[in-house]
């Protein structure tokens, strides 16, 4: 039994737009997992729990990966299929497993070899409703759906493309300080606005580049004070809410509107206490929606100010570049924010380090059932000093 669970180490493989033929999903997952275990100062044989999320690991599953990677015997094993919400879903379960003594060292790993063929397969066969009601439109992939959602948000909050551009260009600035991001060259607001439209109002830089890569974290019970050498990050709260409105709303409110108040209560903190934010940025509109649901602004009419604060990087949001600039590595997209928030709170974020970052919040979002995502979750993390 343990009162406190920490992330003891984390790793992210470099993201690549066009993976070499020899790169495999299983290989990426194991590389990230091994690097995370090493970063935690632990041995591979210490691992007694494994959680995996991947769109392209098939025909293998978590137990196949464990066996092929030389792990075991394991006391705890899970596989999560909830896309952008899978990382925090696994974290929610793993934290309880360690807290209750069911496992002592759990690796959570997410990732995909997401080349053009894998991406096409993913978006064409995402779920039954996509196959039956969206692909035959014909519309493949979520861009059109989130174009419609972004229009609703622009109307509801009085936003313009320029406001979304502040988010995209700021994340590119952060990505310039992340050697693992695929797009690091500065992006100007003019370049953002002049880019080809993908589905109005969405342009090229509102859409995430699919990449190949993997992210992993290692969870353990908190050791004695100072035992982790300042590199441990405590998990204060993890909460999930799915399916708040039956897909018949505007999609501008996510499940975080219910999950976040529970997480803040459990952590004894609020959005204004956070030093670092990692929100699921499949589109800039969703980054804003989640920040609003977290309570990052006092009133809806302050959304433009929020975009401005993100744009000037006074509010540190998606400090590794997010999916928009670092890339969307399939199921790793939800774990990317966990790894980055860990790095910031552990003080190992290099050139992009936010000074004195003690508290951070991560969100997950995903699983478009028909018109927008249905799953949302949130984790509140604290640096162990």
């Amino acid at each position: 039994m343990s009162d406190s669970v920490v992330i003891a180490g984390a790793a992210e493989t470099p993201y690549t737009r066009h993976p070499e033929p020899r790169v495999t999903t299983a290989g990426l997952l194991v590389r990230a997992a091994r690097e995370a275990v090493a970063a935690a100062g632990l041995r591979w044989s210490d691992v007694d729990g494994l959680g995996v999320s991947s769109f392209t690991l098939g025909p293998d599953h978590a137990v196949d990966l464990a066996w092929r990677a030389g792990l075991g015997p394991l006391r705890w094993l899970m596989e999560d299929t909830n896309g952008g919400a899978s990382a925090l879903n696994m974290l929610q379960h793993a934290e309880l497993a360690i807290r209750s003594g069911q496992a002592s060292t759990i690796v959570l790993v997410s990732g995909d070899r997401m080349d053009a063929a894998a991406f096409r397969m993913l978006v064409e066969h995402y779920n039954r409703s996509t196959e039956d009601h969206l692909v035959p439109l014909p519309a493949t992939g979520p861009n059109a759906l989130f174009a419609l959602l972004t229009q609703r948000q622009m109307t509801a909050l009085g936003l313009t493309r320029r406001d979304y551009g502040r988010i995209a260009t700021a994340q590119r600035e952060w990505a310039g300080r992340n050697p693992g991001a695929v797009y690091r060259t500065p992006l100007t607001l003019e370049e953002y606005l002049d880019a080809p439209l993908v589905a109005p109002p969405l342009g090229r830089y509102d859409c995430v580049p699919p990449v190949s890569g993997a992210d992993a974290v290692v969870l353990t019970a908190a050791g004695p004070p100072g035992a982790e050498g300042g590199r441990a990050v405590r998990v204060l709260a993890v909460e999930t809410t799915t399916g708040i409105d039956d897909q018949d709303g505007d999609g501008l409110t996510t499940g975080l509107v219910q999950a976040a108040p529970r997480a803040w209560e459990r952590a004894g903190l609020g959005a204004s206490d956070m030093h670092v934010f990692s929100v699921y940025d499949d589109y800039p509109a969703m980054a804003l929606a989640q920040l609003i649901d977290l309570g990052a602004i006092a009133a809806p009419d302050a959304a433009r100010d929020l975009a401005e604060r993100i744009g000037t990087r006074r509010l540190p949001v998606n400090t590794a570049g997010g999916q928009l600039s670092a890339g969307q590595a399939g199921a790793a997209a939800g774990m990317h924010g966990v790894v980055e928030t860990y790095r910031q709170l552990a003080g190992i974020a290099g050139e992009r380090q936010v000074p004195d970052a003690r508290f951070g919040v991560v969100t997950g979002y995903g699983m478009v059932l028909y018109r927008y995502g249905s799953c949302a979750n949130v984790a509140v993390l604290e640096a162990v000093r």
Partner: protein
Amino acid sequence: MSGTSRAEAAASGALPAFLQSCLACATVVFPPRLACRSCGDDRFEPVPAGPGVVEQVTELPGGLRIASVRARGVLVVCSSTGALAEGDSVTVIGSPGDPAAVPAQVYLPGSAHIHNSAHTENEGTP
């Protein structure tokens, strides 16, 4: 079942579009479900989607319009090869429509074959 939209659709050679209505509480949904969110019943009947109103519209490279359309109170995702604008009244049909039709026809995939599930699906349910 109202025959109006069926007749209109048939006149244009298009398949009619249907939404799914709960037999017990008359809640209408799309896409079709396995049990009713409102009352939990698992028996449904098709109801014509009928006319709709465009709430938002976007355009994909190549010119296809994708629209969020409200029909019978339900928001559905439709396509059209013709021009659409927010607030337009449209006819929701179950096959690709005629862009020159008035009112404009919008396509709701997977809506032409929603069937009565009271006796054909979920065998064993009384």
